């Protein structure tokens, strides 16, 4: 091999350069969605997210159809189930694990509390690169007021 003294350091520098994001993120960045401007405000469900203020589990589980942890991970599964039951299986109500009965409806149940589309839904979905088409048809309350 010719020019070993130049080639090897060159390769090392290249590898270091290509992996800069890893080195930088090791110390500086946290994998969190941007923090919620409404933390602490009433009726604003900030709690589904791991924001810097931390989730408010108590306030959340009081109202929602399932606990925060489940909803954070599997809300899309639950919504899909609701859609199929309501439209195709002629069911109206959902019985939550703790025995409460809810009307299966995005707009009449979920969005009554989770009424801030941009801060509640979009913040996380943008961060995770998820493209929704729910709100092409379904109306969130804030949007309606515009």
């Amino acid at each position, binding site marked *: 091999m010719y020019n070993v003294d130049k080639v090897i350091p060159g390769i090392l520098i290249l590898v270091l350069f290509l992996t800069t994001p890893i080195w930088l993120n090791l110390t500086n960045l946290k994998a969190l969605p941007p923090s919620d401007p409404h933390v602490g405000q009433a009726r604003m469900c900030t709690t589904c997210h791991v924001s810097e203020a931390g989730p408010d589990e108590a306030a959340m589980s009081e109202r929602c159809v399932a606990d925060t942890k489940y909803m954070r991970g599997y809300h899309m599964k639950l919504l899909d189930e609701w859609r199929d039951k*309501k439209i195709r299986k002629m*069911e*109206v109500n959902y019985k939550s694990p703790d025995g409460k009965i809810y009307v299966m409806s995005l*707009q009449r149940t979920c969005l009554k509390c989770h009424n801030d589309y941009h801060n509640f839904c979009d913040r996380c979905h943008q961060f995770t690169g998820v493209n929704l088409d729910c709100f092409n048809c379904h109306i969130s309350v804030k949007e*309606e007021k515009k």
Partner: protein
Amino acid sequence: MSMKRRDFLKITSYGIAGTFLSLTGGVIVGRGSELLKKMDTSSSEKVKWAMVINTRAFQTEEDFNSVILACHRAHNVPDIPDKIREVKWIWKDTFVRGFPTAETKYIGDEIKKRPFLLLCNHCDNPPCVRVCPVKATFKRKDGIVMQDMHRCIGCKFCMAACPYGARNYNFYPPREYLRSVNPEFPTRSLGVVEKCIFCYHRLDEGLVPYCVEASKGKIFFGNLLDENSEVRKVIAENIILVRKPELGTNPKVFYII
């Protein structure tokens, strides 16, 4: 490779014969006959929703508009000025256009000019359900022909299949043409087909459809399989028309003449 003229002809004729066999055989025993089967609900079902419209009671413009507006407002139906591409769930039209095959030469002027309320007939044998390639439109157990907007791909097959013009495609962004918004019900998106859904969401909760409520007794609604129901009585006591009965779709919207 060399081949005798005789062998070549043999192989070719086998091929042609095989093609014909598979073509005709496929249509006769295969998918074709399955598709042509009627889609009647099984007799074990106990509910079959039907509507009876008393056309004699609908007199003034107000009678029609109150019903149409009640439906369109509640379901966020856009009000599109373009008549060819408009979206409607329930609408008003003449006898001749609504019942083209029931028209005879010497029919009375009053009937000819009488406006009729038209909507999806929720056929017992719905052609739209048969053609939908994604099962976005389907028949529920209680006979309602449902439209699942989540699944609709906007192919418009159902519009071509429906003999009643009850289906409309969203050529325009529907949200921009809403007069008022009902936050309890979704809108539709660009590029899906929509139609009357017999207010299935209200029936499931024990309420009557919006149009029935707004008509103040001019539209009857009930279970066609229940002998004592109001609709059965009204149908038995009056002269009833359905739209294009000769097509065999078995409409469940009846008109008192």
